[in-house]
């Protein structure tokens, strides 16, 4: 199991709003898993807890067998184990595509030549080679999200957490980005955990789970 959670609880506003109410689930290596559900049902919160960006009120998260809360080095988790793609691309506008993608490598202290080789490979696979030296402001929405995808995969993470990765794109572009996402995670052997409210996209994952009222209901195998 790459990711496992046990009795995960999370609330906001001093307990006034409980978003997660005892989440138990597991995710296996190389699988693509879709977390479906309406806005505010706790999909993003769950992804944040898995990434160690937030702490649960109760319960535990394990990533690659190590409890996130007790992870000696949460940085190591973000640098080497997990890549994250958000609904908004979250790129730094004044930097070029290449510079944005190299940020995780700079953070992790990866050799610059190695990092640039990796970027070249990812840019080729995402069709962004010709845009590498362009500033983010000059890129289209789809290109920006593909850039975010490259950045998330830069340090060869084992898990890719995608929070509504096509939510800010039109249907056609979103479909193309999602195709690319599935192709990349399959090619890299990465485990994908994706939050989405798009059931059509979700159905293309290996596994689809429904989140409602802070719980995971009726896990459904898509295939």
């Amino acid at each position: 199991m790459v990711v496992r959670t046990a009795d995960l609880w999370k609330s906001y506003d001093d307990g006034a709003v409980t978003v997660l109410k005892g989440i138990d689930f597991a995710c296996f290596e190389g699988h693509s898993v879709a977390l479906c559900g309406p806005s505010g049902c706790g999909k993003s919160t769950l992804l944040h807890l898995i990434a160690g960006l937030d702490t649960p009120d109760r319960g535990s998260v394990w990533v690659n067998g190590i409890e996130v809360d007790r992870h000696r080095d949460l940085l190591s988790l973000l640098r080497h184990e997990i890549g994250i793609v958000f609904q908004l691309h979250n790129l730094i506008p004044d930097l070029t595509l290449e510079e944005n993608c190299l940020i995780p490598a700079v953070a992790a202290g990866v050799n610059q030549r190695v990092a640039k080789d990796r970027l070249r490979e990812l840019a080729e696979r995402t069709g962004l080679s010709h845009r590498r030296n362009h500033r983010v402001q000059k890129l289209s929405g789809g290109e920006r999200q593909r850039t975010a995808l490259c950045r998330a995969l830069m340090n060869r993470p084992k898990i890719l957490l995608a929070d509504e990765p096509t939510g800010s794109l039109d249907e056609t572009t979103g479909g193309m980005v999602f195709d690319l996402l599935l192709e990349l995670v399959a090619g890299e052997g990465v485990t994908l955990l994706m939050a989405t409210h798009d059931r059509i996209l979700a159905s293309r994952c290996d596994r689809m789970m429904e989140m409602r009222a802070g719980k995971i209901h009726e896990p459904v195998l898509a295939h």
Partner: protein
Amino acid sequence: MIFLKLIVTNLRRHRIRSLISVTGVAFSVAAMLTVVSILQGAIGMFSNILSNDSQIIVFERDVSDLFFSSVPASAAAEISNLPMVAHANAVLFGVVASAGHPIITCFGVEPTDARIQKATWIAGDRSDFARNPDDVVLGARAAEFLSASVGSRVQLGHSTFRVMGVVKTTNGFEDGGVFMPLAAAQTFFHKEGTSSVVTVKLRNRDEAAAFNRMVQAKYPDLIALNDSEFSRTYSQFRILKATAWAVGGCGLLLGGLGVANTMIMSVFTRIREIAILRVNGFSHAQIGAVIFGEAAWVTALGAAAGLLAGVCILYALKSIPALDGYIDPSIHPLLMLVVLVLTLLTGVGGALYPAIYAMRVRAVEALRFE
């Protein structure tokens, strides 16, 4: 390279704000350099008056100001006759008023004094000095503001003196002063039989310590100090130096507050960016380095501009005729280093809170920040 770009990118994004911060630091540095340099220059010039062709100054012990010092003529004569002494000159300092000029420094000096012998005589004959007790020699600037020339009479206090010479010196105090024969000055200032200081040149400089000990043993009311020792310990100089550093330090503090304000604004405006860096594996130290790096750029640019501005201000002040001789536009390298180090420390200090704030940013919340 990316790290550097992350540091400077925000400065380029908010050019006006960055420029204002850099200007603030520059003004602080320029103010500190100018104030400290002017006062140190003034101290240096006053020291030069005392150390003109001499190595040691003898004056009254524990006196708060050399104008109040009283060295008996007998002591001056005995010191002058010591075998180790090449020459010793008694000098009396006084301040006198003239019409429209409330403060004119008067130097009561002997004819053999270096101030008379080594000055550039613009008019008059140095061999005539002290031949007549009513004769005075004016510094070039004093002659200018008193509208006097050789042969004319000037009113000093309640007396009238004949100008027998005009000398040009590089020292502002001397150039704007009046030289009188020592005996005439003693009578004029009612200090018969005394001088303010005795300036001493030894035959062998190595005997300075022995000479100083001898003076202190023989004349318990007097103290003998080497020129450098005097500059360091004289209470008036110390007060002036402390004041200069305090005023300069306040300027620097204001610059530091400017940097702090800029950096707080910077952190708030790039809070989402900081969160992106966190999510992509940047450590607290790396985030802090970006913020400190930005502050260091602002401070370094401001310090460089301030240094340039400080030198320009000093040269501009020196070009004012009334200040000529009082200002030394050269900035001591050590002073430059101290000011630069203090500026950098202030800048980094100013970035401390913003950096800590940035390091504590919670990525999840910051990513929601618009």
